[in-house]
Protein backbone atom coordinates (compact mmCIF):
# COMPACT_ATOMS: atom_id res chain seq x y z
CA UNK A 1 0.00 0.00 0.00
CA UNK A 2 1.30 3.40 -0.93
CA UNK A 3 2.21 5.47 2.07
CA UNK A 4 0.76 8.97 2.11
CA UNK A 5 2.06 11.15 4.88
CA UNK A 6 -0.34 13.27 6.82
CA UNK A 7 1.61 16.40 6.05
CA UNK A 8 1.53 15.81 2.29
CA UNK A 9 -2.23 15.52 2.42
CA UNK A 10 -2.79 18.61 4.53
CA UNK A 11 -0.23 20.96 3.04
CA UNK A 12 -1.22 22.37 -0.38
CA UNK A 13 1.51 22.18 -2.98
CA UNK A 14 0.50 25.41 -4.63
CA UNK A 15 -0.79 28.58 -3.11
CA UNK A 16 -4.31 29.39 -4.36
CA UNK A 17 -4.48 31.99 -7.07
CA UNK A 18 -4.12 35.41 -5.62
CA UNK A 19 -4.53 38.56 -7.71
CA UNK A 20 -1.50 40.83 -7.62
CA UNK A 21 -1.85 44.13 -5.91
CA UNK A 22 -1.25 46.76 -8.54
CA UNK A 23 -1.99 50.00 -6.80
CA UNK A 24 -1.82 51.32 -3.28
CA UNK A 25 -1.29 55.03 -2.92
CA UNK A 26 -0.71 57.08 0.17
CA UNK A 27 -1.11 60.82 -0.20
CA UNK A 28 0.24 63.37 2.23
CA UNK A 29 -2.68 65.14 3.84
CA UNK A 30 -1.54 67.03 6.95
CA UNK A 31 1.22 67.51 9.47
CA UNK A 32 0.93 68.87 12.97
CA UNK A 33 4.06 70.12 14.71
CA UNK A 34 4.87 70.88 18.29
CA UNK A 35 4.68 74.60 19.02
CA UNK A 36 2.88 75.52 15.82
CA UNK A 37 -0.77 76.57 15.77
CA UNK A 38 -1.18 75.96 19.47
CA UNK A 39 -0.20 72.29 19.25
CA UNK A 40 1.62 70.99 22.32
CA UNK A 41 2.88 67.62 23.45
CA UNK A 42 4.71 66.49 20.32
CA UNK A 43 8.32 67.29 21.23
CA UNK A 44 10.11 64.10 20.15
CA UNK A 45 6.87 62.34 19.31
CA UNK A 46 7.68 58.72 20.02
CA UNK A 47 4.59 56.64 19.39
CA UNK A 48 0.93 56.97 18.57
CA UNK A 49 -2.24 54.95 18.66
CA UNK A 50 -5.80 55.44 17.43
CA UNK A 51 -8.96 54.70 19.37
CA UNK A 52 -11.03 51.68 18.24
CA UNK A 53 -13.87 54.01 17.22
CA UNK A 54 -11.45 55.98 15.02
CA UNK A 55 -12.37 59.27 16.66
CA UNK A 56 -9.09 60.09 18.40
CA UNK A 57 -5.34 59.79 17.98
CA UNK A 58 -3.04 59.75 21.01
CA UNK A 59 0.68 60.60 20.90
CA UNK A 60 3.35 59.94 23.52
CA UNK A 61 6.21 62.45 23.36
CA UNK A 62 9.58 61.65 24.89
CA UNK A 63 10.94 65.17 25.45
CA UNK A 64 7.61 66.74 26.35
CA UNK A 65 7.00 63.91 28.85
CA UNK A 66 3.43 63.91 27.72
CA UNK A 67 0.48 62.33 26.02
CA UNK A 68 -1.36 64.52 23.50
CA UNK A 69 -4.94 64.06 22.34
CA UNK A 70 -6.24 64.77 18.84
CA UNK A 71 -9.75 64.44 17.47
CA UNK A 72 -10.12 62.87 14.05
CA UNK A 73 -12.59 63.88 11.37
CA UNK A 74 -14.07 60.62 10.14
CA UNK A 75 -14.72 61.92 6.65
CA UNK A 76 -11.38 63.58 5.94
CA UNK A 77 -9.04 61.94 8.42
CA UNK A 78 -7.75 65.35 9.50
CA UNK A 79 -6.63 65.79 13.09
CA UNK A 80 -7.39 68.63 15.50
CA UNK A 81 -5.38 69.21 18.64
CA UNK A 82 -7.44 68.82 21.81
CA UNK A 83 -5.41 68.27 24.96
CA UNK A 84 -2.03 67.53 26.45
CA UNK A 85 -1.22 65.91 29.78
CA UNK A 86 2.33 66.36 31.02
CA UNK A 87 4.41 64.74 33.70
CA UNK A 88 4.42 66.80 36.87
CA UNK A 89 1.49 69.00 35.83
CA UNK A 90 -1.89 68.70 37.54
CA UNK A 91 -0.83 65.64 39.50
CA UNK A 92 0.10 63.61 36.41
CA UNK A 93 2.99 61.22 37.00
CA UNK A 94 4.79 58.46 35.12
CA UNK A 95 5.33 60.25 31.80
CA UNK A 96 9.03 61.08 32.14
CA UNK A 97 10.54 60.02 28.79
CA UNK A 98 7.11 58.89 27.61
CA UNK A 99 7.51 56.11 25.08
CA UNK A 100 4.65 53.84 24.07
CA UNK A 101 0.96 54.75 24.12
CA UNK A 102 -1.88 52.25 23.70
CA UNK A 103 -5.66 52.57 23.73
CA UNK A 104 -7.55 49.67 25.29
CA UNK A 105 -9.72 47.56 22.95
CA UNK A 106 -12.89 48.82 24.65
CA UNK A 107 -11.78 52.43 24.15
CA UNK A 108 -12.19 53.25 27.82
CA UNK A 109 -8.53 53.59 28.80
CA UNK A 110 -5.18 54.86 27.57
CA UNK A 111 -1.83 53.65 28.93
CA UNK A 112 1.63 55.16 28.50
CA UNK A 113 5.05 53.82 29.49
CA UNK A 114 7.57 56.27 30.91
CA UNK A 115 11.17 55.11 30.56
CA UNK A 116 12.51 57.88 32.78
CA UNK A 117 9.98 57.18 35.51
CA UNK A 118 10.28 53.38 35.23
CA UNK A 119 6.51 53.45 35.16
CA UNK A 120 3.22 52.94 33.44
CA UNK A 121 0.60 55.68 33.66
CA UNK A 122 -3.12 54.98 33.36
CA UNK A 123 -5.77 57.33 31.99
CA UNK A 124 -9.50 56.98 31.54
CA UNK A 125 -10.90 58.08 28.19
CA UNK A 126 -14.15 59.93 27.64
CA UNK A 127 -15.63 58.01 24.70
CA UNK A 128 -17.62 61.05 23.60
CA UNK A 129 -14.92 63.72 23.67
CA UNK A 130 -11.79 61.58 23.62
CA UNK A 131 -10.32 63.62 26.48
CA UNK A 132 -8.20 61.87 29.07
CA UNK A 133 -8.25 61.93 32.85
CA UNK A 134 -5.21 60.80 34.82
CA UNK A 135 -5.97 57.82 37.05
CA UNK A 136 -2.83 56.11 38.29
CA UNK A 137 0.89 55.51 38.08
CA UNK A 138 2.66 52.27 38.86
CA UNK A 139 6.42 52.53 39.33
CA UNK A 140 9.21 50.02 39.59
CA UNK A 141 10.10 49.36 43.21
CA UNK A 142 7.01 51.04 44.63
CA UNK A 143 4.24 49.05 46.33
CA UNK A 144 5.76 45.73 45.36
CA UNK A 145 5.79 46.48 41.62
CA UNK A 146 8.80 45.05 39.80
CA UNK A 147 9.97 44.67 36.21
CA UNK A 148 9.45 48.27 35.07
CA UNK A 149 13.05 49.51 35.12
CA UNK A 150 13.28 51.48 31.82
CA UNK A 151 9.66 50.57 31.00
CA UNK A 152 9.19 50.50 27.27
CA UNK A 153 7.07 47.93 25.39
CA UNK A 154 3.37 47.88 26.13
CA UNK A 155 0.62 45.49 25.08
CA UNK A 156 -3.02 45.06 26.07
CA UNK A 157 -4.69 41.67 25.71
CA UNK A 158 -7.50 41.57 23.12
CA UNK A 159 -10.05 40.97 25.86
CA UNK A 160 -8.77 44.05 27.68
CA UNK A 161 -8.29 42.14 30.90
CA UNK A 162 -4.50 42.40 31.09
CA UNK A 163 -1.66 44.80 30.36
CA UNK A 164 1.95 43.73 29.80
CA UNK A 165 5.01 45.99 30.02
CA UNK A 166 8.65 45.24 29.21
CA UNK A 167 11.30 46.60 31.52
CA UNK A 168 14.46 46.80 29.42
CA UNK A 169 16.98 47.02 32.24
CA UNK A 170 15.03 44.61 34.43
CA UNK A 171 15.13 42.07 31.59
CA UNK A 172 11.52 41.37 32.44
CA UNK A 173 7.89 41.55 31.47
CA UNK A 174 5.57 42.87 34.14
CA UNK A 175 1.98 41.63 34.16
CA UNK A 176 -1.06 43.59 35.29
CA UNK A 177 -4.78 42.95 35.55
CA UNK A 178 -6.99 45.78 34.35
CA UNK A 179 -10.19 47.23 35.79
CA UNK A 180 -12.05 48.53 32.74
CA UNK A 181 -14.41 50.64 34.86
CA UNK A 182 -11.62 52.63 36.52
CA UNK A 183 -8.78 52.04 34.01
CA UNK A 184 -6.58 51.18 36.99
CA UNK A 185 -4.08 48.35 36.94
CA UNK A 186 -3.09 45.82 39.58
CA UNK A 187 0.35 44.25 39.57
CA UNK A 188 0.28 40.48 39.12
CA UNK A 189 3.95 39.57 38.86
CA UNK A 190 6.68 39.32 36.26
CA UNK A 191 8.67 37.07 34.01
CA UNK A 192 12.38 37.78 34.33
CA UNK A 193 15.13 36.69 31.98
CA UNK A 194 16.84 33.56 33.28
CA UNK A 195 14.09 32.78 35.77
CA UNK A 196 11.32 30.22 35.39
CA UNK A 197 11.95 29.18 31.80
CA UNK A 198 13.41 32.28 30.19
CA UNK A 199 16.73 31.63 28.48
CA UNK A 200 19.62 33.36 30.27
CA UNK A 201 21.84 35.83 28.54
CA UNK A 202 19.28 37.56 26.35
CA UNK A 203 17.63 40.87 26.77
CA UNK A 204 13.86 41.20 26.66
CA UNK A 205 13.42 44.24 24.50
CA UNK A 206 10.82 44.18 21.74
CA UNK A 207 11.24 47.21 19.54
CA UNK A 208 14.20 49.34 18.62
CA UNK A 209 16.95 50.45 20.92
CA UNK A 210 20.46 50.99 19.54
CA UNK A 211 23.16 48.86 21.04
CA UNK A 212 20.93 46.35 22.73
CA UNK A 213 20.39 42.77 21.78
CA UNK A 214 16.92 41.71 20.81
CA UNK A 215 15.12 38.45 20.98
CA UNK A 216 11.62 37.24 20.41
CA UNK A 217 9.50 35.17 22.68
CA UNK A 218 6.10 33.76 22.11
CA UNK A 219 4.26 34.15 25.36
CA UNK A 220 1.06 32.20 25.62
CA UNK A 221 -1.55 33.85 27.77
CA UNK A 222 -3.29 31.53 30.14
CA UNK A 223 -7.02 31.81 29.84
CA UNK A 224 -7.41 32.23 33.56
CA UNK A 225 -5.61 35.01 35.35
CA UNK A 226 -3.67 36.57 32.49
CA UNK A 227 -0.33 35.03 33.48
CA UNK A 228 2.12 34.23 30.72
CA UNK A 229 3.85 31.03 29.76
CA UNK A 230 7.14 31.40 27.87
CA UNK A 231 7.56 29.46 24.67
CA UNK A 232 10.87 29.90 22.92
CA UNK A 233 10.94 30.54 19.19
Amino acid at each position, binding site marked *: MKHVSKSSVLAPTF*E*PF*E*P*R*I*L*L*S*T*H*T*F*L*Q*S*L*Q*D*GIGGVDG*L*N*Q*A*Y*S*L*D*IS*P*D*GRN*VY*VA*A*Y*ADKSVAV*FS*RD*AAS*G*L*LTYQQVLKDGVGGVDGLNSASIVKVSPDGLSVYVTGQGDNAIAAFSRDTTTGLLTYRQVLKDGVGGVDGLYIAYGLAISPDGANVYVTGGYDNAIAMFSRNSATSQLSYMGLLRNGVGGFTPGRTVWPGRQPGRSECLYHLRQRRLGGHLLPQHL
Partner: protein
Amino acid sequence: MGIFSRSIYSGSLTFVERVMNGWAGVANMDRPDSVTLSPDGANVYVSGNNSSSVVVFTRTPPTAGD
Protein backbone atom coordinates in the same frame (compact mmCIF):
# COMPACT_ATOMS: atom_id res chain seq x y z
CA MET B 1 7.73 54.60 5.29
CA GLY B 2 7.68 51.39 3.34
CA ILE B 3 4.39 50.01 2.09
CA PHE B 4 3.91 46.32 1.40
CA SER B 5 1.11 44.12 0.21
CA ARG B 6 0.44 41.00 2.24
CA SER B 7 -0.50 37.60 0.91
CA ILE B 8 -3.66 36.48 2.63
CA TYR B 9 -2.56 32.86 2.10
CA SER B 10 1.09 32.80 3.16
CA GLY B 11 1.47 36.09 5.01
CA SER B 12 4.44 36.99 2.81
CA LEU B 13 5.04 40.64 1.98
CA THR B 14 5.68 42.32 -1.35
CA PHE B 15 7.12 45.80 -1.57
CA VAL B 16 4.68 48.26 -3.14
CA GLU B 17 6.06 51.74 -2.63
CA ARG B 18 7.87 54.07 -0.29
CA VAL B 19 6.85 57.40 1.12
CA MET B 20 9.76 59.64 2.07
CA ASN B 21 10.12 62.88 3.92
CA GLY B 22 10.71 65.70 1.45
CA TRP B 23 9.32 63.81 -1.53
CA ALA B 24 5.95 64.30 -3.24
CA GLY B 25 4.91 66.95 -0.77
CA VAL B 26 5.60 64.88 2.32
CA ALA B 27 6.84 67.15 5.11
CA ASN B 28 7.70 66.99 8.80
CA MET B 29 8.25 63.22 8.82
CA ASP B 30 11.84 63.31 10.11
CA ARG B 31 12.78 60.06 11.87
CA PRO B 32 9.37 58.41 11.87
CA ASP B 33 9.06 56.18 14.89
CA SER B 34 5.52 54.88 14.95
CA VAL B 35 2.70 54.21 12.52
CA THR B 36 -0.95 53.28 12.87
CA LEU B 37 -3.94 52.89 10.58
CA SER B 38 -7.45 54.15 11.16
CA PRO B 39 -9.99 51.37 11.78
CA ASP B 40 -11.77 52.23 8.53
CA GLY B 41 -8.50 51.90 6.61
CA ALA B 42 -8.83 55.38 5.12
CA ASN B 43 -5.86 57.02 6.82
CA VAL B 44 -2.32 56.34 8.01
CA TYR B 45 -0.82 58.29 10.90
CA VAL B 46 2.93 58.57 11.56
CA SER B 47 4.82 60.15 14.43
CA GLY B 48 8.00 62.05 13.57
CA ASN B 49 10.53 62.06 16.38
CA ASN B 50 13.04 64.62 15.05
CA SER B 51 10.32 66.80 13.55
CA SER B 52 8.17 66.56 16.71
CA SER B 53 5.13 65.95 14.58
CA VAL B 54 2.24 63.81 13.53
CA VAL B 55 1.80 63.26 9.79
CA VAL B 56 -1.49 62.23 8.21
CA PHE B 57 -1.90 60.34 4.92
CA THR B 58 -4.97 59.36 2.97
CA ARG B 59 -4.83 55.75 1.91
CA THR B 60 -6.30 54.47 -1.31
CA PRO B 61 -7.38 50.87 -0.80
CA PRO B 62 -5.37 48.40 -2.87
CA THR B 63 -6.67 47.61 -6.33
CA ALA B 64 -6.53 44.01 -7.47
CA GLY B 65 -5.52 43.10 -10.98
CA ASP B 66 -4.12 40.19 -12.90
